[in-house]
């Protein structure tokens, strides 16, 4: 046993060495929660960072610093010169891009954040209408910590599936995928609030167009399967079957929730290419106006058909728009690559084919139930 005592001692002593490594004490660091990138006026990039400083005695303090430099780390150094605490990025939750910057190219910025091991792959990315600096620098009446606020705003909308999920991982995945393009939410300042105003469509690393926020439901339907969500649409008069309404009306707004959808995508012709998109939706009717009698099974069938037709039209419209700007945010290209052998697909090649792609949208809509009162 004596023989080992020496080693035991050494081992024990070396455990004390753990105190010698780099320390990050909460009181002495500034936690960056949001970083906003903009095109710089003089130098390459302008960065606005929302930094949360934790004070043990007082309330935490949120600092917003805007700097301009050629590199991101250069900006960090510049910001560091203005702060009493060391800046860290481990708690970064959201990365925002100014619209002008997004319209140039985000490739560099995606790689930048992937390279850094301190940056989590789960953070959200979004585009800001116009520029990020004014959005972050504005003093909102009811928002204490803008960093947390924007993060929560995105998080709750994404987890409830109102908005597409734009994590760093997914964004990078789509960027580096041959048959898929990036889509990100767009946010903007609306008086004293911050709101989501749309979806940005990208071609490669460049933002080429946007869709209104209402369309995020259709985009989500085509991209993935759905598990929750909530949706409102307007059925037009010409889509309505006769006899559905007691009183004729030009439009019926209708709201569903608890939507479950199953998406099935089939490549039926590789040369055009042509896809069959079969969507199976099950939902609960939450609100319908004016009164429609849902007790009659005949009428329910008719209503289901009408809704299916309406959804199919809307989805086709959204896909057509994305095709026009050559942005495959739905991942049709991935399907094509996985089905066609030795296609040797590249992103450019796919964008060429994507323009002429045909999609047949078939929707099978089932009304499960309405509320507890008919």
């Amino acid at each position: 046993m004596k023989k080992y005592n020496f080693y035991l001692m050494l081992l024990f002593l070396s455990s004390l060495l753990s105190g010698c490594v780099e320390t990050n004490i909460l009181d002495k660091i500034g936690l960056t929660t949001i970083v906003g990138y903009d095109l710089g006026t003089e130098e390459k990039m302008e960065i606005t960072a929302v930094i949360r400083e934790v004070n043990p005695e007082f309330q935490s303090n949120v600092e917003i610093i805007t700097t301009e430099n050629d590199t991101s780390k250069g900006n960090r150094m510049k910001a560091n010169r203005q702060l009493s605490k060391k800046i860290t990025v481990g708690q970064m939750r959201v990365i925002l891009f100014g619209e002008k910057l997004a319209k140039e190219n985000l490739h560099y910025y995606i790689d930048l954040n992937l390279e850094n091991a301190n940056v989590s792959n789960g953070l959200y990315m979004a585009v800001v209408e116009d520029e990020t600096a004014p959005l972050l620098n504005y003093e909102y009446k009811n928002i204490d910590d803008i960093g947390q606020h924007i993060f929560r705003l995105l998080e709750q909308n994404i987890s409830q599936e109102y908005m597409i999920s734009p994590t760093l991982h997914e964004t990078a995945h789509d960027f580096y995928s041959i048959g898929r393009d990036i889509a990100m939410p767009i946010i903007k300042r609306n008086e004293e609030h911050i709101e989501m105003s749309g979806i940005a469509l990208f071609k490669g690393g460049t933002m080429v167009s946007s869709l209104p926020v209402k369309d995020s439901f259709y985009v989500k339907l085509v991209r993935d399967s759905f598990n929750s969500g909530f949706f409102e649409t307007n059925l037009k008069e010409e889509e309505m079957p006769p006899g559905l309404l007691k009183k004729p009306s030009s439009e019926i707004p209708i709201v569903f929730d608890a939507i479950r959808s199953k998406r099935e995508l089939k490549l039926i012709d590789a040369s055009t290419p042509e896809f069959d998109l079969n969507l199976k939706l099950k939902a609960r009717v939450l609100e319908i106006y004016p009164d429609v009698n849902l007790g009659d099974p005949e009428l329910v069938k008719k209503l289901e058909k009408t809704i299916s037709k309406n959804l199919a039209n809307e989805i086709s419209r959204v896909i057509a728009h994305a095709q026009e700007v050559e942005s495959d945010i739905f991942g049709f290209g991935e399907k094509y690559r996985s089905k066609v052998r030795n296609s040797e697909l590249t992103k450019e090649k796919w964008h060429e084919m994507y323009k002429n792609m045909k999609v047949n949208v078939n929707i099978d809509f089932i009304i499960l139930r309405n509320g507890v009162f008919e």
Partner: protein
Amino acid sequence: MKNSIRLSSKDMINAYLLFFVIHSAQVGVGIQGFQRIIYQDAKHDAWISVLVAGLATHIVAFCMIKTLEVYGSNDLYGIQQDIFGIWIGNFLNALYVVYCFIAFFSVLRNYIEVIQAWIFPNLGTWFLSATLLLIIIYAFTGGLRVVVGVSFFSVILALWIFPMLIFPMKFSSSEALFPILETNLSSIFKGAQSMTFTIIGFEILNVIYPFIKEKKKVKKYVHLGLLATTIIYLSVMMVSITYYSEGKLLKTIWATLTLFSFISFPFMERFEFVAVCFWMLIILPNLCLYLWAAYRGTIRLVKISGTKFVWIFSLLIFIGTLIVQTRTQINSINTHFGQIAFYIVFIYPIFLFMITMLKKKITSRKG
């Protein structure tokens, strides 16, 4: 036959422990980032390469066991001395010791690189390598039974990491795997060959064989251990292919660790930091076993005590880790080592097996 090793049963280990030894010797630093290397060759059929490589380990292990069974209770060093004579045999033994040395070195240096890249960029290499070496020296001086114990606990304590693969699966799409077998066969085999660096370690069987109590059960546990490794590699590869897109996987250096970077719990923001630190437990048996194997070879060549040997060995490794500083150097060591290891671990045992069989035939005819 001569030079066989006689041991008292108190120095021997049970056969079922071989499962842990083989498995823990295989899984080490390679698994942290093997995906992109295989993917470069085999594209989305990389998982087939993993299967092929797994199958190859079974075949090679079969040959190893057959060779060892001929000698009853002897290790590779004794067999080489017997077959090739003292001079050539000892030369080959020395080569094998060098191989163990380089394997040890490359595991250690790669792990240090991971720590420096992920968590402590400013921490000196010398510090990490000295602390790790101290633990290994401590384990080694305890003898084989301690080393095997380390293997056992390394497997048991790291079991919980495997189910963590479920989290990234939420973001995977099986489409990425299709069309199956689009890559041509030669690329798939090339990918399988690139697996060498990740999948080696089971050659420890050559050295540990005489220490197993129930020789008859060796086969079963060795193959089970290899199977477990193949299953783990296969699932990690499958999840990686479906989770990353083509371009992203090729650019991700430690794809397994990046897989974990998505996971966050309310009580733990960044899971992969824990995984990186915990990996020390996974590489520990790797290091201990290679060190032990090198020692077994050295005592056939020169008379040296274990303590003396381990200090000299560690000092050389320590100096080595200081010389190799950059990523490019480490990568080139990995590639070259992988190529050499392919011949030592996969080709040579089959060759040795054939010679042994030939020799057995000749001697039995004479007798």
